[in-house]
Each structure stands twice: as structure tokens, then as C-alpha cells.
């Protein structure tokens, strides 16, 4: 690495070292004051076009060398920039005003359109790209947690390459995708996660048709290089996204990439990070008892045998995990002149996770350009290439972790293979009947994905007159992913007859979209008008081949020819030698009209007309409106704006949008019935309703923005209310009178409400020390307001990960509830106890017994600087929300949970005997004593309700970053180096939680699951590791 650094330095010295001009300079000095007339400290003063710069001291004064005619640029946080041309004298007093800042600030909203935030009638939040990068999350999505109010990231787990579910303002759809749209420089990019479910091979999914529980596939937006991101704007409400159409009904995440500055210089930056990762959060297991049943020893993984006496007990848990190591190298080159600029960036990320065999590698290359052609035209082409390779262990029910926890303490897991390298069974002669040793599992049951992705895009802006502009954004997004999962022939998850199993898939994506907008602006007196019309075209095509087979020929071959041809099962289109497809195209036309008065009141109305290939011709076209208002009260009411109150805005917006089903959800298909006499075809189970309509979403939000005390304190508060109706539910059971078993229908409705508050305070600000703190508060309520009367419970089947608990919901309840089996109780709510066993009577019905929605979340960001030091950290607080700890239930049923330790102690369960008197005035209290050690049913029959932990809180230090910028004495000695800094970033260092499991950040499914998904389901979930990153950053 050092060599590269040295090389960079040499290049810098050799080519770009220029001597500053010294002639005719004179000293300019002055005092910089704020709106209140008080001096401002720490204002940066630069001589335009040179590198000469200084800062004001605590009394606001500065001195700098400049020539007459040169321009001094004063910049200060919250004030923006003020310029002063050097005249004949040497005096340079400047009064900076807040107003100037308002002209500079822009926010990128839909369609890559830059807007003055003043005009916006809806809430947006912007995160600086460097801040994301500094947090050292290779999947930048994870860095958004806590940084944006109303944005929730549910990570699948701590494995390398894990997917993350992103949700803005709660779950609007019960059965469809709730993830927001990702837009890079005005072009839509794919963020899908492979959904394993193929519905019997008729859809994309895997040929083995799985339920998104046992493996993981990256969410594809994680391909993006964090180093290319200049900023991210999160558009949470559908008003903001009304212009993006139905796909953005769950919000949009707008990424703006870094661009080169046209300053005529070559800028080179290089940075790196070296990370070590350690898993410290693991579920507790108890190794006191040997295998057996009711104290009788037996050769079994179920640890209900006698206590170990004097045997060697291994610390298997800690012998398994390794210290993870990863490294990142980022290089970027920028060069720009007056009419054209280029930026090239390259990045390497190479991770070896804490789990053996778990690796993730990513290479990114990107080249972007901006060129002015003639007077009116500017083009911005770019191209990115990404290559990722993810080797990943299985997770959940067939993963290494549960077996690691279940492993008998007296056996050393490291001794997992026979002399010939095969699985060494512990208890069963038949290796397939014996649980997989975790090492065996990670080494022999392998899974990997490889992706190559290209993202070329092209932007054009034509401004023939001052009032008219035409913009076009054209983007192509294509990737090929090749992946496999191989189960060894001796694996517990297969039968001996299967002789191994291998799933292969080949997934191609071709996405094209463009938007073309024509905008006209006109000012008449105090009125500002803006009219935009536009067109959008989207064409997304997935192709997937998938095959699963048994009887593996080789353990090293991972190609699909490794399986026995007679055992292969493929997706439906394979009979035609074609892949399965999922293609959606849509055209949209939209318009937006806004009018502003005196820069204080802004009204805007937009309407979108959409035509989508998902619906049949007759009802393919639909449209929806949106409107918003923004009032700058502080500018409107004279005398309001002053020393204390600097700015006050009121805003409101309402919008309707639509959400469509997945392609072909309205077309019932025939299955081949070669298995019947005469063959032919018959309808599959699914009634794919031809008359399906898009889901309807109606939202309004009101909000306010206030800034106080020289903009040092700012508050942005929003209340939103979203009503979703006509919800599409796919694979929904109903009477067979439809002619089918499963149905796709428009049923049900729900509601999401929430309050988001962002508070920003400059606690301290002087020449040496600055401290900014930011709070992002989020509270959500959600409710199922309509379900058909014949549906007692609706559940997303993927979430049914273990035993009898699942993400079920009922009418009038929250959308995030957990339904499960539980205890039977009398009218008084006491546990009912069986008169024959002395054990609780169970209520084997799926009832609501938990809600995963937190009471509130709070992200707390701090950034401090002192001289050359910069410290920033993010605390993430979550209060409330329930978790189904399936891991704990599993460990309890096999006697490995700590709760089973005191099993020898006789006890009487508190409750009422079910003797017929339980609901009378004189119920019989339970008096039956049981000893779990000899009556293990006490543990094995504990219902799921027992393991739904209520009100789980966390307070975690997501990231902590300390940065030191070397002073000019160091950089000067390095000649070409313009700036040099070093940093240390620690992720997830502190976790304070009341959760009984390892880490409450859990998800039982991948981000490929639809609907609410599996967050809050902990089954063999790996906790978040602690990561320590060290690195250097240099610019030349």
C-alpha cells in the first residue's frame, strides 16, 4: 500500500506542482460580522482561484494576502458564501447574511431536478456522502439508519454480504414490496434481492422454491461505491415521489454522485481502511448437561441427560468464530476545465468475515464526465462497472449457528471430520441423521454469488433561453448474477438417498429508463411560475435460469452439470429452453405546475398518467394527483424574523399514488400434468385475478421548519398520515368456489401515521472548537383497517420461520404484529394448568401476541472538531417493539438454554387448575409440583408466546469516527500532498439492550421477502460484530 501512496506522491510532485504567484500581493484585513452585527469566528476566507486561505479568529478578524481585483470568498456554515472584491485599500470588513445562504442551497428532488428547499411542501432529508463513507459501511444503506428520521434499515444479519431491508415511513403494502426506489443522478437503479420463492417454478426464484430463510443474497444497491456518493436525499412521502410513479410509492432515495470541479486542476484522492471485526454478541448457551431424555442418558443432541461430571467442556462457541479482516482502497481522479470535467474512481473492498468461509469482495470503477456543448447544451455521461463475489454460509434453520449453539459441550467442534475428510457423525451411524457440525456446515454446505454489473447513464440539459429548459436522463442498468448453493451428501438437511443437492441459478437483469422534462419559468411581478411536463419510460427485465438436482458427482464442482440429470428440476420455461422472465414496462406522462408569491408562498400541483404492462389493456392506464403548499411565515409576517427566530416555514402536502402487483400476478397459468394419464395441462393453484387493480395510497403530511439563534438551532417536524386501500394480496386462501386454491385479490386496507422530528443544534462554534448535534426522532403507528370478514388472520408465509409464530396480522391490529400459539388462560387472565400433568394448558391458535413496531426511535448524531481533530459518532436508540426469540425457544426445547439450568428444582407453576372451576369465584390454585429434570415437557412444550420478548430496547453506538488532519508542516514536507488525514472508525462498539438474545437487530428473512418481512424474528441470527477501521486519506 505504501508503494501506491508513494507513487501517488511522486505523480503529484512531478506533474502538478505549481509555484504560487507572489507578485504585487498586499495584506488585507478586516472583521466579519453576522446578521446581528456580532463578529463571527471560524469563517473561511479564500482568495478566489488560488489556494490562499485563512480563518477568522474569535473576534472575527482575519488577515490575508491578495492583489487588487482579486475576489475574497467568505464562507461559513449556515451563512453560505459572501464575496468581496479587493479594491485599492487594505480594508476588508464584511457583514454576512443568512439570506445569501438560501440562494445557494439546493436540494435534488425527483428527476434530478434541483429545487430551492423553501419551495418544497414536503419533508426531505439530505445526508452528506462523506458522512456515509466515514461510517465505513460497505453497504451504504446501513449507514442511513439513525441518520434519517422515518427511515428504518433491517439488516439480515452480521454476515458479509448480508442484505438489508429499507423501509420509509412504515409498511404500506401487506404482501407486495415495500422498499423505496433508488435513483442515481436521475436514473433508476435496481435494488432487488433475489426472492427464492418460484411458486413451483413458475416465477423467478430458485428451482428448489425456498422461503427466503436459509440463505441470503445481497440487496443490489449495495453494489454502489460509497465513495462515489456526494449526497443522498431521502424523499419519504409520496408527494415527493408522485412524479416517480407507482414504484416510488414507498418513497425514494435519491443519490447524487460526486462530480469534478471545473477548476483546471487534477485532483487525486486516495484513501484506505483496514478493518478488523470481532463477534462479541452471541446467544448464551449452557453446557452443564449431557444428552438424554428426562435424566436418562441417550445419544442425542437433546441435553436432558444427567449433568456432566468431570468431563472436559469445550468453549465451542468461541472456537468457531474468527477475527474478520477487511480492507478498502479508494482512488479518485478529478480533472475539469471550463467546459468539460472528468471524474474517475476505483475501489476495492475485500472482506473476510468473522464466520469461517464467509467472504465478500467488491470492485468498483466509475467514470463520469460533464461537457458543455455550445451555449445551451450540457451533457453528463457516466459509466460504472461493479463486480462482487460473495461466499456465504447458510443461515437460519439450516445454518451453522443453531448447530453451534446446540452442540454438546463435551465434544470439540474443531474435530469435525473423519480421517478421510468426511463428516464425522456424533450420535448416528447414518451421517444424514446427525446434525451438521458448524465447521462441516460452513465448509461443506457452500453457497456463493457472483455479480457483474454495468450502469451507464447519460444526462442532457438544454437551456435555449433563460425561461425554458429541457432535461433528459437516460440510464441503463444491467447485471448478471451467477450463484449456487450446495448441500453435502451427508448433510442433516438431506436424506441419504438424495446424495447431495445443488441449486444453481443464473440471473440477468436489463433495466432501462429515461425521463425527459421540459420546464418553463416565468416571473410576473411578485409571482413566480413554473410549469413542467415530462415523459418517463421504464423497461425492466429479469431473466432467470435455475436448476436443482441431487446425486452430486463432485464436491468441488459447483456448476449445474454436477447433478444427476434425472433428478434435475428446473423453472417452467426450461421446457422451451428459455429462462423464466419478469418484464415490466411502463410509460408515464406527468406535469407539475407551481406558483410562488414573493418567495414566501409556494403552491404546486402535479399529476401523473401511467400506463403499465402489468395490467390488461382495458385497465392499464391510471393516473393520480399531488399537491403541496409551502409558506415562509417568517418572510410573510413583518417583524417576525429577528434575532431569535430566523426562519419559519409551514408546509403541507397531499398525494395519491398507486402501487402495482408483480408482473403476471393477474394471469392464471397452466401447469404441465405429465404425471396424469393422458398428460396435458391443468390450472395451477393460483387464481391470478384478471381484474386486479393497483393498490391505492393516499397520504397527507403537514410540517414545519424553524431556525433560531443565527440558524444555530433548527427544527424540522412532520406529521404524516398514509391510508392504503385496495391492497393486493397474492397467494391468498379463499373458498375453492373461485375455481382455485390460492387467490390474488384486492382486499384490505391499512393506515400508517407518524411523527418525525429532526433537531439540529450548533452547540459550540468558535475558532478552535465546534460541536454540532443532531437528533432524528421517529414514531410510527400502523393499523390494519380492513380485512375481509372471512379472513381471521393474514400472514406472510416467509415469516413462519420456526415453530408456530409468524408475521400474522388481524383486523384492527397493527401491521407489524406477531401471531403465535400461546398459553390458555381463564377469564381472569391466569394461566390454566392441566390437572393431569401440572403443565400449562396451551392455546394452539394463532393469536396476536406481540408487535414488532417500536414505540419510537431516535438517532443522535454528534460531530465535533477541535483544531485538526474531528470526532463524530452516532447513537441509535430504539424503544419498544417485540421480538420472537426463536433461537431461545429452540435452545430451550433441547435443554441448552440457560433457563433450563435449574431443572432439578421442583416447582409449582403459578396458575389455576383447569378443573371446571377455573372461571368461578373459587378457582383452584395449581398445587401440582413438577421437576423439569425428569419431566422435560416442561421445557419442550413451552409455547411460542413465552419467547416473544416484549418491549425490546436498544441503545447502540452505530459508529464512532475520529479523524486527524495533518497540519501544513506535514503536508508541505510531502510536497505534492495537498492534504493528509488519518482516521479510526469503530462500528457497533456499544450495545445496551434488555434483549435476552445476542443482538436485537434481527431478521428471520432476507430483504427478498415481501410485505412486512421477517424483522423481529430471531432464529439463528448472527449478531452485529464490532468493527475497528483504521485508514488514511490523502489528496494531491
Amino acid at each position, binding site marked *: 500500500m505504501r508503494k501506491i501512496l508513494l507513487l501517488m506522491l511522486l505523480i503529484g510532485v512531478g506533474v502538478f506542482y505549481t509555484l504560487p504567484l507572489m507578485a504585487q500581493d498586499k495584506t488585507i484585513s478586516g472583521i466579519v460580522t453576522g446578521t446581528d452585527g456580532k463578529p463571527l469566528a471560524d469563517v473561511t476566507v479564500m482568495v478566489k482561484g488560488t489556494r490562499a486561505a485563512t480563518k477568522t479568529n474569535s473576534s472575527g478578524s482575519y488577515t490575508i494576502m491578495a492583489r487588487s481585483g482579486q475576489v475574497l470568498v467568505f464562507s461559513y456554515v449556515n451563512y453560505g458564501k459572501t464575496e468581496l472584491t479587493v479594491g485599492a485599500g487594505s480594508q476588508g470588513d464584511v457583514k454576512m447574511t443568512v439570506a445569501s445562504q438560501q440562494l445557494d442551497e439546493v436540494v435534488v428532488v425527483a428527476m434530478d431536478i434541483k429545487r430551492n428547499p423553501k419551495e418544497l411542501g414536503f419533508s426531505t432529508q439530505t445526508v452528506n456522502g462523506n458522512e456515509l463513507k466515514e461510517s465505513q459501511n460497505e453497504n451504504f444503506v446501513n449507514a442511513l439508519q439513525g441518520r434519517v428520521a422515518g427511515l428504518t434499515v433491517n439488516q439480515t444479519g452480521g454476515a458479509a454480504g448480508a442484505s438489508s431491508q429499507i423501509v420509509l415511513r412504515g409498511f404500506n403494502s401487506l404482501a407486495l414490496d415495500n422498499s423505496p426506489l433508488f435513483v442515481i443522478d436521475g436514473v433508476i437503479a435496481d435494488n432487488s434481492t433475489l426472492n427464492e420463492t418460484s411458486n413451483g417454478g413458475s416465477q423467478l426464484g430458485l428451482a428448489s422454491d425456498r422461503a427466503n430463510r436459509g440463505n441470503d443474497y445481497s440487496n443490489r444497491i449495495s453494489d454502489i461505491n460509497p465513495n462515489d456518493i456526494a449526497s443522498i436525499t431521502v424523499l419519504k412521502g409520496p408527494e415527493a415521489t408522485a412524479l416517480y410513479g407507482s414504484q416510488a410509492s414507498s418513497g425514494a432515495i435519491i443519490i447524487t454522485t460526486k462530480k469534478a470541479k471545473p477548476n483546471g486542476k487534477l485532483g487525486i484522492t486516495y484513501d484506505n481502511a483496514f478493518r478488523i471485526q470481532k463477534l462479541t454478541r452471541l446467544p448464551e448457551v449452557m453446557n452443564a448437561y449431557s444428552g438424554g431424555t428426562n435424566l436418562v442418558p441417550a445419544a442425542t443432541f437433546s441435553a436432558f441427560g444427567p449433568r456432566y461430571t468431570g468431563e472436559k467442556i469445550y468453549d465451542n462457541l468461541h472456537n468457531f468464530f474468527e477475527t474478520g479482516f477487511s480492507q478498502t482502497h479508494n482512488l479518485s481522479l478529478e480533472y475539469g476545465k471550463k467546459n468539460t470535467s472528468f471524474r474517475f474512481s476505483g475501489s476495492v473492498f475485500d472482506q473476510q468475515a468473522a464466520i469461517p468461509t464467509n467472504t465478500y469482495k467488491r470492485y468498483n470503477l466509475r467514470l463520469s464526465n460533464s461537457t458543455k456543448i455550445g451555449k445551451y447544451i450540457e451533457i453528463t455521461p457516466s459509466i460504472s462497472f461493479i463486480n462482487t463475489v460473495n461466499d456465504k454460509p447458510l443461515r437460519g434453520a439450516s445454518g451453522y449457528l443453531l448447530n453451534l449453539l446446540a452442540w454438546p459441550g463435551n465434544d470439540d467442534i474443531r474435530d469435525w471430520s473423519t480421517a478421510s475428510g468426511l463428516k464425522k457423525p456424533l450420535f448416528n451411524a447414518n451421517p444424514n441423521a446427525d446434525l451438521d457440525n458448524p465447521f462441516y456446515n460452513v465448509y461443506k454446505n457452500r453457497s456463493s454469488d457472483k455479480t457483474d454489473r454495468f450502469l451507464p447513464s447519460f444526462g442532457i440539459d438544454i437551456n*435555449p433561453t433563460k425561461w425554458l429548459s429541457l432535461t433528459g436522463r437516460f440510464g441503463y442498468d444491467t447485471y448478471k448474477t451467477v450463484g449456487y448453493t450446495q448441500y453435502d451428501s451427508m448433510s442433516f438437511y438431506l436424506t441419504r438417498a438424495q446424495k447431495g443437492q445443488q441449486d444453481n441459478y443464473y440471473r440477468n437483469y436489463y433495466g432501462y429508463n429515461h425521463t425527459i422534462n421540459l420546464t418553463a419559468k416565468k416571473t410576473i411581478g411578485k409571482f413566480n411560475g413554473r410549469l413542467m411536463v415530462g*415523459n418517463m419510460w421504464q423497461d425492466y427485465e429479469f431473466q432467470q435460469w435455475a436448476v436443482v438436482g441431487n446425486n452430486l458427482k463432485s464436491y468441488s464442482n459447483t456448476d449445474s452439470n454436477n447433478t444427476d440429470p434425472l433428478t434435475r428440476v428446473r423453472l417452467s420455461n426450461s421446457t422451451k429452453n428459455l429462462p423464466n422472465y419478469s418484464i415490466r*414496462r411502463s410509460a408515464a406522462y406527468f406535469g407539475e405546475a407551481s406558483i410562488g408569491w414573493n418567495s414566501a408562498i409556494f403552491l404546486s400541483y402535479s399529476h401523473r398518467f401511467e400506463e403499465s404492462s402489468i*395490467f390488461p389493456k382495458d385497465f392499464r392506464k391510471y393516473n393520480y394527483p399531488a399537491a403541496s403548499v409551502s409558506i415562509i411565515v417568517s418572510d410573510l409576517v413583518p417583524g417576525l424574523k429577528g434575532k431569535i427566530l430566523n426562519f419559519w416555514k409551514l408546509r403541507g402536502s397531499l398525494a395519491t399514488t398507486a402501487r402495482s402487483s408483480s408482473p403476471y400476478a393477474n394471469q392464471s397459468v397452466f401447469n404441465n*400434468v405429465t404425471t396424469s*394419464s393422458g398428460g396435458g395441462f391443468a390450472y395451477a393453484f393460483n387464481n391470478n385475478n384478471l381484474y386486479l387493480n393497483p393498490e391505492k395510497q393516499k397520504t397527507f403530511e403537514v410540517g414545519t421548519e424553524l431556525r433560531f439563534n443565527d440558524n444555530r438551532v433548527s427544527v424540522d417536524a412532520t406529521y404524516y398520515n398514509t391510508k392504503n386501500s385496495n391492497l393486493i394480496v397474492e397467494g391468498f386462501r379463499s373458498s375453492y368456489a373461485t375455481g382455485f386454491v390460492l387467490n390474488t385479490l384486492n*382486499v384490505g386496507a391499512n393506515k400508517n401515521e407518524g411523527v418525525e422530528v429532526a433537531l439540529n443544534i450548533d452547540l459550540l462554534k468558535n475558532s478552535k472548537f465546534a460541536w454540532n448535534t443532531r437528533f432524528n426522532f421517529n414514531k410510527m403507528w400502523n393499523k390494519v383497517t380492513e380485512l375481509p370478514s372471512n379472513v381471521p388472520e393474514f400472514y406472510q408465509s416467509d415469516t413462519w420461520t420456526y415453530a408456530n409464530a409468524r408475521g400474522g396480522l388481524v383486523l384492527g391490529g397493527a401491521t407489524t404484529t406477531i401471531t403465535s400459539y400461546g398459553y390458555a388462560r381463564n377469564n381472569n387472565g391466569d394461566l390454566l394448568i392441566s390437572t393431569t400433568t401440572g403443565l400449562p394448558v396451551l392455546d394452539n391458535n394463532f393469536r396476536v401476541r406481540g408487535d414488532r413496531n417500536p414505540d419510537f426511535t431516535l438517532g443522535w448524531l454528534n460531530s465535533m472538531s477541535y483544531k485538526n481533530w474531528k470526532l463524530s459518532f452516532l447513537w441509535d436508540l430504539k424503544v419498544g417493539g417485540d421480538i420472537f426469540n426463536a433461537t431461545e425457544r429452540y435452545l430451550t426445547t433441547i435443554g441448552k438454554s440457560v433457563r433450563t439450568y435449574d431443572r432439578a428444582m421442583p416447582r409449582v407453576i403459578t396458575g389455576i387448575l383447569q378443573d371446571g372451576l377455573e372461571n368461578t369465584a373459587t378457582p383452584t390454585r395449581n398445587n401440582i409440583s413438577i421437576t423439569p429434570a425428569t419431566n422435560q415437557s416442561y421445557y419442550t412444550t413451552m409455547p411460542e408466546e413465552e419467547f416473544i420478548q416484549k418491549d425490546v430496547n436498544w441503545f447502540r453506538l452505530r459508529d464512532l469516527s475520529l479523524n486527524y488532519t495533518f497540519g501544513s508542516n506535514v503536508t508541505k514536507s510531502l510536497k505534492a500532498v495537498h492534504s493528509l488525514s488519518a482516521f479510526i472508525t469503530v462500528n457497533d462498539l456499544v450495545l445496551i439492550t434488555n434483549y435476552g438474545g445476542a443482538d436485537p437487530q434481527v431478521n428471520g428473512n432476507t430483504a427478498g421477502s415481501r410485505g412486512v418481512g421477517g424483522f423481529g424474528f430471531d432464529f439463528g441470527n448472527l449478531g452485529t460484530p464490532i468493527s475497528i477501521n483504521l485508514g488514511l486519506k490523502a489528496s494531491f
Partner: protein
Amino acid sequence: MKNKIFKYFLVSTTAILLCSCSKKIDDVYQNPNAPTRVPVEALLPHIIASMAANAEGHGTMNDIRYVGAYVQNFQYAASLSVFDEMGYNNSDVAQSTWRMHYYDIGQNNVMMIRWAEEEKKWDYAGVGQAIFAWSWLTLVDYYGEVIVKEAFNTDQITFKYDTEETAYNLVRDLCFQSLENLNKTGDNVSQANLAKGDQYFYNGDAGKWKKFVYSVLARYYNHQSNKATYKADSVIYYANLAITNNADNAMVKFAATAISGTNSFFGTFRGNLAGASTASPTAIRQGAYIANLENGTNTAFSGEQDPRAWYLLRGNTAGTIKGILPNKGQIASLPIATDRPESFYGVSQNSTSVVNTIPSTDAACRFIFRNDAPFPIITASEVLFMKSEAAFRKGDKTLALQAYTQAIDQSFDMLSTTFNVNIPVGKEITAANKMAYMSSIVPGSVAGLNLTKIMLQKYIHMFAHGVLETWLDMRRYHYTDLDPLTGQQVYKDLVVPSGSDLFIDNAGKLVYRMRPRFNSEYVWNILELQRIGATTNDYHTKPLWVVTP
């Protein structure tokens, strides 16, 4: 100038975008992964297979295993079965008929009829309607009130139940629509083309399909024998047009290849007669009632050994034919091991416990319990028995006796031709033993004929394959109705379960209908079930409309 170019550019771009989009969108609407429309010829095989039992195991054969216990064709090998007790299971057990009608035949048939009419393949449309007429009748007699008017509406999630009469009317209408289509020639009607889909039923013979429709009509009129509107003449009229010769028998045939689903549901390959759990008691044996009818114990045919016995039933080590009592199981019913009948797979039951082994081949199996045995849907004999009963009720006893004689004759012939496989040596039907039996069973004059004789001979003929129809017959006679002529039970010697042998929810009453399919109706259409009173514990004992006056 620049502005002009800009305007042209704008106008032309917009124009291009506008006209090409709609077409491109329409191009990708159709599901490319699986067909949304298939040829009608490819739909019929599965529909036909579902009448018996398709590859997924759904069709009437599936339910016959349980209903056979109601009518005492079969009893459970072990003791205590809810079906021996005339009860039910709160599950999808014995609920295949619901699925067969609404799903397995269901939309496949709806679309086959629609597309056949579009393509002017009138024969396919007629066959589809014929099958629907049959399956609606089967369904309504099985469940009583069912969903008729709202059925097959894919845009609904709850469905209203209609009266049985509504379903009955639909059956009649479908029959006439079917006949109209089957009578058509020209257009795209072709026997060779119909045979493509019909290979395993009538092999494209539309004439036979018409006879099938007339047979359904005969059933339709015959079922209404308790009604004031009963028309014996109509039964006779349609019976005369219907299947009256074994050559025209409506049977589902099986390809019986190495793929399990192409074999008979009752054969050893699919092994569906070994369910040893009381929740799904499919380890069935012949009931004592049928055995006694065949071995001459039943007082209706005292002393007459039926030569058909060794075709229909299983012998025992003692060389006799005996059966099992309802709810007692074979051990208690027949304490002497050598008396216990073999299983239908030919496995000896001499052991101290029930043996439910599935042999690797069907070499020891007979009748419809073989892998390649066709499964009768409607037979000539059944039609003739209907004619006989109707004529008898009408008072035309000469015709009744004539039809009765023909019916028994056809019954013998069906066994000695189609099912003449694996019969023990010396137990074959011969002209002589058939003649001997018939001369005893068939009275010499009309005075000797009575309903008991007609219904019990029909009962014997319908054994195992015609269970659902037998159930309706017995319900028409309310199981224990008396023959006005003899003052004896029509189903002579039939002992219906009582006391602890009758399911507790029945509250002393006998079973008259099946409760609608659990995972379709009780879970997802419960409000409508509440409305029609199907949520009471004894709903299954509510007599059908068709068997009440």
C-alpha cells in the same frame, strides 16, 4: 434558429415516444413463463382423470374410501373410525369431491367449454358440459347446499350458498346444453380430435358421451323419488336412451405407466388403502353387510352364494367370504384369524394385528384395486336398476322385472369381461353358476319382485365403485325405510350404528351429508356457513332436500 431546431426536436421526440410506447407495453403483458391458454385437447385428460382420482389424488375415489363406511361397503380395519360411526373429521379428509368439482375440474372445464365454443369444437364443449352435469350432481348429493350461482367467480372471496334445487336445475340445463353440442356435426367436430383428449374415457365417441348424459339425466330424475314432482316416466325415458350395455360403460381408464399418477388410485402402486390413523382411516376391508349379501347370509338372498363374490370381495384362509362390523375393527369382528378377509391388496390378516402392507405389485389384486383397472363412473347395470326401480314405483312391474333381470345380467358380464383378473381358480363366473344364481334371485313372476330385491342387487353391483350413488340410494330410503310390499327394511338386515358406535355429534341421527370442505369453507367462508346453519355439530345429519318430500 436555435430555438426552432429545439422545437422540432421536442415535437418529434414526443411523437416518437407516444406512438411506440403502448405497443411495447402490450408486448410484455402476457406471462411468458407458463401458458395462460392451452388447447382444449390438452385440458380434457386432467378433467377426466379428476372424475376418478387425478395425479394429485383428488376425485371421487379418494372419498369413496370414507363414504364406503357410511354405506357399509367398507369398514376400517382397526376399531373406532369416525366414518364407521357416520361421523366426520374437522379437516380435509373425505373432502376430495369439493376440490374435484371446484378446482380440479372447475376452471379447467369452464375454460375448456369456453374455448371449445370459440373454436367451434362443439364435441369438446358438449363433453365439458356433460362432465359438469355429472360433477354438479355428485357434489350436491354429497354436500347438500353448495355454491352454485357465484361459483367460479374469480373476483370474489366469499360465496353464497344456494339451494340444492338450484344445483339440480343446473344439472338438467347442462345436460340439455351438452346434448345440443354433442348433436352438432361439422365445424371443428371430429371423433379423431376428440379422442386426443378423451383417450382414457370414450376415445372420442360422441355417441357414447350422449348416452353418458342421458344416464346423468336418469340419475337426476331417479334421485327425486321422494318428491311429489317425481317422474318415473322420465327416469325410464332417459334410461332407455342411456348406457344399457357394458360396451358403453362410462369408465375412467389409466395408462398405468411407471409414473405413479397414471395408475389407479386404488392400485398398489399408489398404495392409498393403508392409512392406519383414525384421522384418515383408509386401511379398509369389506364390510359385513356386503359380505353377507354375497355369501348368502343376508335373509334377502338366503343361502345364495353369489358367483360375483370372488370378483368383488376378498376371501380368507378358511376359504370363505366374511366382512367386518362397523366400528369394531377386524379383530373384534372376526375373532377367528382365518375368518378375516384379506386386504384389498390380497394381504392375509391372520396375524394378531392389522397388516396394512402395500405389496410391490398388484398381482394379488382384483376388481378396481389393480393399477390398471378402469374405474366405473356410470354402468349399464346401474342405469337398468334405476329403470327397474322407476318402473316398479310406477307400477309397471313387468318392465321392472325385465330391467332387473337385464341389470343383474349386465353386472355379471361386466365382472366377467372387464374385471376378469386374478380370480381364484374355481371361483370364476360361469354360464352355469350365473344361471343358477339368477334363477334363484330373479323371481319367476312380477309378484316376487320387491324394492328390497332391486335395491340390494343394485347395492351389490355398485360395490366399491358406485359408493357415492349407493349413499344417495340409502339416504333416499332413509337407511331403514320399509318396503311397503314386504313390511321389511328395503335394505334388509342393515344394522345402522347406534349408541357408542354412532358419532357423538350426531345426537342419535344418521349421516345425510358431508360438511363442506374444511380448508375451503370452514376457514375462509365461515360467515356463509353460519348463515346456512352448517356450523352446528350435527349439520351432517341434516337430510338432503332431494330425499325429503
